[in-house]
């Protein structure tokens, strides 16, 4: 029984992180798949979302700005709004130029965001990061939540304590995973509606032939900025949930561009850019490959270590992550060259809006 519980909780955490990556991939799909905008700063937008959420919802702390203790949903929404505001500023500046420039600018903005998070130690606690971020569902077990409105209406402190002691400690894990999956599904249906709507078809037209779309009277720049903002908003939400999942965020390791930006790109391109189902499929697939390869490499290292005594395990373990990154990089090159359309190629919407 114990071992099944372990597998179950592992599956839940795979689903949780897979769902967060699926949200990031969906956000990138709006920018790249729909509008052809190259965003190389996914990590930056996720960081904005995560930090906004964390700073607004955590309890008061002597290390960083806080103590607002806003409801978690408000934190999520403000995370989205804030990511959207930053995207608007970048969009207004860079969207007129060709995709390469946008890529450079977004890499830059991700670095600047990281610099701000590192240097404004009074607000963000700098490189040491923010701790104890309230996690949806699990936060009910925290004292500051069950002694306040609305939870205090149902029971008093003692009652809640007794209740939480009576249920298993991991009770929130399936709820948290399901919440994220639900959000992915809602986002998916919203984006599917958008894709076949006049707006979505206009986006495709602009991506395929900008000049023709402009000649047909479409406001190319405005539409592109809209797509860029929408994608960033979804990424901000994903960042907020990433912060909840990790509970401890800091600027460098958490928002490492290779794990955030690059992996999301591989997911989208493997799944099929322009196809929302493909984005979700790619996210879960690559995430499963990525996390199961960790088990495989660890196993191989242990076998090697028992076979040869002279091998230093710590060095091998240290390097194994980079070997996996190398293979993910080669996988991207392979997909780009052989299957540029991905597993699920883009389906163009019918003219009448039926699909």
């Amino acid at each position, binding site marked *: 029984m114990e071992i099944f519980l372990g597998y179950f909780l592992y599956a839940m955490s795979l689903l949780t992180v897979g769902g967060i990556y699926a949200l990031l991939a969906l956000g990138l799909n709006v920018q790249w798949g729909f509008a*052809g905008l*190259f965003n*190389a700063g996914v990590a930056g937008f996720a960081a904005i979302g995560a930090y906004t959420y964390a700073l607004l919802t955590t309890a008061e702390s002597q290390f960083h700005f806080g103590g607002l203790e806003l409801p978690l949903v408000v934190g999520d929404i403000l995370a989205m709004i804030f990511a959207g505001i930053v995207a608007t500023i970048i969009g207004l*500046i*860079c969207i007129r*130029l*060709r*995709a*390469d*420039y946008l*890529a*450079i*600018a977004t*890499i*830059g*903005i991700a*670095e*600047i965001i990281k*610099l701000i998070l*590192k*240097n404004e130690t009074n607000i963000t606690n700098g490189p040491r990061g923010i701790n104890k971020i309230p996690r949806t569902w699990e936060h009910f077990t925290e004292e500051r939540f069950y002694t306040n409105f609305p939870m205090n209406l149902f029971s008093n402190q003692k009652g809640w304590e007794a209740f939480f002691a009576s249920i298993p400690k991991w009770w929130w894990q399936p709820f948290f995973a399901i919440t994220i999956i639900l959000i992915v599904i809602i986002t998916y249906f919203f984006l599917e509606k958008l894709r076949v709507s006049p707006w979505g078809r206009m986006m495709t037209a602009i991506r395929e032939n900008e000049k023709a779309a402009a000649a047909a009277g479409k406001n190319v720049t405005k539409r592109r900025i809209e797509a860029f903002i929408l994608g960033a908003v979804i990424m901000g939400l994903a960042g907020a949930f990433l912060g909840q999942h990790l509970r401890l965020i800091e600027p460098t390791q958490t928002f490492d*561009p*290779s794990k955030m930006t*690059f992996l999301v*790109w591989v997911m989208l*391109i493997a799944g099929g850019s322009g196809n929302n189902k493909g984005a979700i499929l790619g996210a879960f697939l690559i995430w499963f490959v990525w996390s199961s390869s960790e088990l495989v490499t660890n196993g191989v290292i242990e076998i090697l270590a028992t076979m040869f005594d002279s091998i230093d395990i710590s*060095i091998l373990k*240290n*390097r194994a992550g*980079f*070997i996996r*990154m*190398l293979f*993910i*990089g*080669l996988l*991207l*090159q392979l997909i*780009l*060259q052989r299957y*540029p359309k991905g597993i699920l190629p883009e389906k163009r919407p019918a003219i009448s809006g039926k699909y």
Partner: protein
Amino acid sequence: MWESFWFEFINFYFIPGLVLGCIYALGAIGITLTFGILRFANFAHGEIMMTSSYLTWEFVLVASSFGLILHPIIGAIPASICAIFLALIVDRFFYKPFRNSPTIMIVIASFGMMLIIRSLVQVIWGPNQITFVKGIAKPNHFIKDFTSNFDMMLLIPNKHISILLGTIIIMLVFNYLLSSTKIGKGMRAVSDNPNLAEVSGINVENIVKATWVVGGFCAAAAGVFLALDTQFIESTMGFRMLLPMFAAAILGGIGRPFGAVAGGLIIGLAEELSAYPWLGNGPVISPGYKSGVAFSIMVLMLIFRPSGLFRGKVF
């Protein structure tokens, strides 16, 4: 008059800025050449810099195990040859298949190459910082004594002198290459108009190879100079250089190698001088935000003059 202001300003802000500018300039040459000739932003350029500094370190280490104590600049010669081959191999296997596709495909491929090369270096040499040159760099005695006679003491460490001299030599050779040789003229022609260059009998594929040779060599030089300056190497040093190098290329104008040099010097000086206490006591911009200076310059250029100072291309 050599007041304390000038002493501090020149020695601790201007010369380091100039040295940093030289490193950016060398890196930006490769970026602006590939942007101008192959028409894409090469994100893997910084990683070629980084790899060549690791290779230099390795060559020096191997030589010392045979009892040879090499100066890093001599170790840089085989390393730069390896860097050129690396650039050519990457082009052949990862960029060439996309030559007729939309350019954004190569940008994605180069984005992937950035991670592949970095992971490879991390697998081979590990993720930790490595000391490149040991010890504290002392200012050159001769220059110090000589300038002290004129009441203006210049404190320039030997490493800075070799970086400045090395950059000037590379620039002169590069200038000769670009203005007087067939290859250089071909490069300029392809940069101006690839189709016209091809119909007028220039072998574009050869020009592309030459571009990688020149760009790879300059990147290797920049990487080794950077390692000489900071005295350590780490796997993220190339990525840290990427933004200032792009800023330099855009500031100078895409496809304008000497614009990139000017841009590199301006960005290097701006980054160092922004830390000078121009107003009051504290630095104008906190040193933590130094790398933001390059980015702001780049954004301002993109808003007000995307063609750069020297009228480069805008795609």
